[in-house]
């Protein structure tokens, strides 16, 4: 059956050439171009045999990881996956699932990209030609790595096939698209730093990648060359486990898609009461449950904090580039403030759905507190982690209390300020259902002014705790750090309560005006 499927793929390929000669020309040009690249790359690989084994290992692992990552991602972004053998077409046939899966996977090698990948990854052995055990490991690892590429591509496209066409997919894809754009700056910056700093962190990167599905097989020969047989054996087991897991997941997805063939997607899958069953049945709890549901389901909210998981990466880049790892200490306060301000556009995001709050006469203080509560559910743990981990890893636990105090002060007082600000000001934001990255006309100036003002207020509010941190650094007395913690938490708590109260009062007084403002943003 497996051979049958591969022959089918070959026949389909041949027939498509017959029907359209231009396709053949395209495949030939693409194939030749790809082949040239592969020959070039493999020649380079062969040269590595004379280089230091550790360097060769680093380069090969990074390169192979990049190729594997490409297989996992490119088909999704470019939607250019070869679905000559679309699993959906086998729905009506009775083929045992493992055989179908194997056949479909191996048929991936019949085709230009699959074949070239096999050649490229298999060509690694040239780098290890002076070391017979490593050479054999490189050959086996190359084939296994190529299989991993195909399996990953199948896994991602199969799981995505269920999402494509659904509203949820469009939501998520829009956000994913922005992440590389945000990271582009530091990446280019790092590249421009010159090859030296790249060489500094590449080995570390390779070490990490060697334990991920991306680079595990490529790292295998390096272990043997270094004589680390135990590590090599462990890595082989790990790699096979990864491959098995990917295949299993893909096969499951395949099975699901064949049992429930994709019908035109209308409507979402049923949802339960979700957060409404968790929060207390009070107006405040209801607002929190609704807001938390939106944090999870509305891409605009996710987009407003998409920068949060990227922030550690950005700061890490900056701190390694500037050679000052202490910079990582700002992560806690920064994330605290950022996440607190994520609720400052809450009413704007509600758009005219806010009318429900006006019509039900929910008290302003309940509205404010509920929104803060929902955001705090994830913002508080994240802030705590971002405040605690950097000092611990940098070996500066002496600064931990002060950093924790400043971070919590930033988060709590940020909630307070945002609660007041969003009761008074609305932004022009993307409407519900629109792309989260659409910039509505006329948004810029006002948003900039309001945000500048709030950040200015924040920096003033953080002064006491910051001052105590400076005092600790200058005098080396731990007491100032603990004072910073106490002052930060107390100040933050007081401002939080005050902000919710004041914001609530403003909301009670101005709900109709706020309603008008969001209606005007339509």
């Amino acid at each position, binding site marked *: 059956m497996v051979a049958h499927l591969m022959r089918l793929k070959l026949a389909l390929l041949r027939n498509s050439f017959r029907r359209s000669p231009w396709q053949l020309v395209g495949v030939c040009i693409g194939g030749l171009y790809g082949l040239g690249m592969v020959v070039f790359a493999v020649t380079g690989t062969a040269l590595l045999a004379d280089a230091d084994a550790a360097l060769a290992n680093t380069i090969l692992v990074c390169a192979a990881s990049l190729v594997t990552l490409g297989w996992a991602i490119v088909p999704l972004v470019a939607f250019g996956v070869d679905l000559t053998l679309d699993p959906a077409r086998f729905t009506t046939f009775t083929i045992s699932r493992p055989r179908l899966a194997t056949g479909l996977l191996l048929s991936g090698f019949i085709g230009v990209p699959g074949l070239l990948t096999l050649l490229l990854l298999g060509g690694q052995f040239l780098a290890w030609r002076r070391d017979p055990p490593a050479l054999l490991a490189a050959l086996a690892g190359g084939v296994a790595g190529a299989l991993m590429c195909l399996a990953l591509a199948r896994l991602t496209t199969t799981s995505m096939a269920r999402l494509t066409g659904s509203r949820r997919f469009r939501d998520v894809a829009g956000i994913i698209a922005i992440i590389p754009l945000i990271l582009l700056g530091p990446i280019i910056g790092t590249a421009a730093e010159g090859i030296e700093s790249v060489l500094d962190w590449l080995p570390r990167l390779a070490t990490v990648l060697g334990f991920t599905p991306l680079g595990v097989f490529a790292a295998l020969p390096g272990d043997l060359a270094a004589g680390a047989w135990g590590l090599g054996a462990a890595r082989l087991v790990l790699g096979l486990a990864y491959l098995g897991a990917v295949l299993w997941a893909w096969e499951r997805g395949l099975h699901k898609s064949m049992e429930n063939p994709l019908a035109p997607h209308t409507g979402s899958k049923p949802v339960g*009461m979700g957060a409404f069953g968790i929060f207390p049945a009070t*107006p405040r709890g*209801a607002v929190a449950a609704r807001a938390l549901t939106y944090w999870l389901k509305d891409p605009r909210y996710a987009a407003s904090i998409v920068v949060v998981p990227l922030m550690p990466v950005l700061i890490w880049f900056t701190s390694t580039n500037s050679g000052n790892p202490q910079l990582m200490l700002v992560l806690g306060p920064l994330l605290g403030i950022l996440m607190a301000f994520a609720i400052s556009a809450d009413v704007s995001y509600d758009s005219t759905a806010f009318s*429900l709050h006006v019509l039900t006469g929910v008290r302003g203080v309940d509205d404010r507190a509920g929104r803060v509560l929902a955001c705090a559910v994830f913002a508080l743990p994240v802030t705590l982690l971002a405040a605690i981990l950097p000092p611990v890893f940098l070996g500066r636990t002496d600064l931990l209390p002060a950093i924790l105090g400043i971070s919590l002060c930033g988060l709590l007082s940020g909630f307070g300020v945002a609660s007041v600000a969003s009761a008074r000001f609305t932004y022009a934001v993307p409407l519900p259902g629109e792309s989260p990255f659409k910039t509505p006309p006329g948004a810029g100036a006002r948003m900039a002014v309001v945000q500048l003002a709030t950040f200015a207020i924040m920096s003033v509010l953080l002064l006491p705790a910051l001052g105590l941190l400076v005092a600790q650094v200058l005098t080396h007395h731990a007491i100032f750090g603990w004072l910073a913690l106490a002052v930060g938490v107390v100040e933050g708590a007081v401002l939080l309560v005050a902000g919710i109260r004041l914001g609530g009062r403003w909301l009670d007084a101005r709900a109709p005006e706020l*309603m008008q403002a969001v209606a005007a943003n339509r």
Partner: protein
Amino acid sequence: MSNSTAEPGTPALSIRSLGKRFGDKVAVNGISLDVPAGSFFGLVGPNGAGKTTTLSMATGLLRPDAGQAWLAGIDVWAEPLRAKAAMGVLADGVRLFDRLSGRQLVTYSGLLRGMDRDTVAERTEDLLRVLDLEDAGAKLVVDYSAGMTKKIALATALIHSPRVLVLDEPFEAVDPVSAANIREILADYVAHGGTVIVSSHVMDLVQRMCSHVAVIAEGNLLAAGTVDAVRGGVSLEERFVQLVGGRGNSEGLSWLHT
């Protein structure tokens, strides 16, 4: 919240000289109107007549430039929370929290009003059942059709068993079967002492359904009273066209005569 604490004879809704201006345009030009308690009151008028603006000002959604509104004797703009507790509103042209499921949205509306969880759960199921949304209850509102969206919005206005219902265009895009169901629910509600105020521009519907009617055009109140008194022997539609004017241009499209 459904008991009638107001003295008998107090109008369900009473507005005095209510006015609103948007820039140069006068949207509502000092309207005064009484809606008797226990009536099924229709508010009719051509597009852009000021129906939605008037109802928004009477329900606390839009602050009037001038005038006052009392709901069951409670000043809407002096005691908004008390007034809002007594009314259920279906606003027109506003979004819903549509990333919630229908069931979540109705529950949300009940909980926001401070009702307890069990009552909310029980009434939510009742509402979904009578509005024929039981199967759709677990689906996200964003995936609803226009008619279903209208029905779920109606459910959010009914959950707290208000004394007065203010419904802006409740039958728009609703299928005939559901519309009949809704009419039945509303008629039953009125029969048991509730007051319903609906805006519509379907005269036929208003004539059949309502006990009272008010005609608004260009921000002014043209007529108000019982349906029979307002229409004075002719159909409501004819009377409406007489009042509002604007007919007589049907000769204009001679090229349309094929």
